[in-house]
């Protein structure tokens, strides 16, 4: 790194300050163009420009609270599916080249094909959210700012116990913006889809944590 730098600087000096300034400006322009292009692919309009998204997941999302609500504040596709931080964003964007490949291959280009893949695709998103402690949810929903008195009696209770147990948003809030794949719920014939353990990942119950909580009460 250092030796390279030295050689680079030496060469720069030889070429003169004018060239260095030009290089600097070119850098800014390149960076600006790169960023603009990346942000251009980070819009709802871009996401639903392919019919795989527009005809399937976007239609399901339109009636949910993240798309249409009292005050009109929205969370669009990239708000949940693309990280805000630069490095994770670039990593996700590179991974998205796989999605471009499958767009070309037409892997999910009919609703039937999409639904056949729904479980797998949903599992990928659940896993991604779980790994980052639901980072994209928490870009807006800061649970340090939860006012439990304002929440309903059910949500207030579940949020407090869940967060104390170390749960993350996606552990419970699955299928909030899109339809769910088949989920086994012990009704009728067994379903092929997500198992109860996948749908509600068991919280690693720290054996010592529980008696402590009881002690604190007593």
């Amino acid at each position, binding site marked *: 790194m250092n030796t390279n730098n030295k050689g680079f600087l030496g060469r720069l000096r030889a070429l003169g300050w004018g060239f260095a300034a030009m290089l600097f400006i070119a850098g800014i322009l390149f960076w600006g163009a790169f960023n603009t292009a990346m942000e251009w692919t980070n819009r709802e309009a871009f996401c639903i420009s392919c019919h795989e998204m527009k005809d399937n997941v976007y239609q399901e999302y339109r009636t*949910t*609270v993240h798309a249409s609500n009292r005050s009109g504040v929205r969370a669009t596709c990239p708000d949940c599916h693309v990280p805000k931080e630069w490095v994770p964003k670039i990593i996700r964007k590179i991974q998205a080249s796989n999605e471009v490949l499958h767009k070309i291959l037409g892997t999910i280009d009919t609703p039937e094909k999409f639904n056949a893949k729904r479980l797998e695709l949903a599992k990928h998103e659940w896993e991604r959210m779980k790994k980052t402690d639901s980072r994209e949810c928490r870009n807006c929903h800061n649970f340090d700012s939860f006012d439990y008195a304002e929440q*309903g*009696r*059910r949500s207030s*209770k*579940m949020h407090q116990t869940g967060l104390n147990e170390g749960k993350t948003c996606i552990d419970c809030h699955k*299928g909030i913006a899109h*339809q*769910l*794949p*088949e*989920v086994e*719920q*012990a*009704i*009728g*014939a067994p*379903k092929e*889809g997500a198992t*109860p353990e996948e749908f*509600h990942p068991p919280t690693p119950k720290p054996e010592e944590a529980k008696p402590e909580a009881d002690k604190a009460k007593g």
Partner: protein
Amino acid sequence: MNKPTFNSARLRATALAMTLSMALAQTFLAPATAVAATEAPVKLQSLRGADIQASDPEGDGTRYGRDQPPLPRDFVQQPPLIPHTIKGYNITKNFNKCLDCHAWARAKETGATKISVTHFKTREGEELSSVSPRRYFCNQCHVPQSDAKPLVGNTFKPGTGMR
């Protein structure tokens, strides 16, 4: 975008055909109806006060109240009421949102009321080890509440044993 328009055009065509055939039928049956009309002019009146042809008076929109503890029942065998909002709670082929809390496996964690054991029985009376598929659509019987003004007054009193 084109397809729905085409469909609705077809629908309109079907509706037009139906109106035409009804009009034809009426011309043939007209003498009979005319006689009936002159004999007994019946004045229809709906319980809800609106004209029989008109649609029900519009409410000011249903809004669910805040979550409540379980509500009392008013008659024997009444399906328990839903004491919370069910906005956005979908029951689809893939997933039943109600069961996500009220299933026996979930009720302890969520603090929800467990599904009644009566729901484990099939139409033929056979006891299953899981909820009977005929009970899948919860809100066919269980309904949420709002404090909407009743459209018609009534004098119903809860059963003596339920008060």
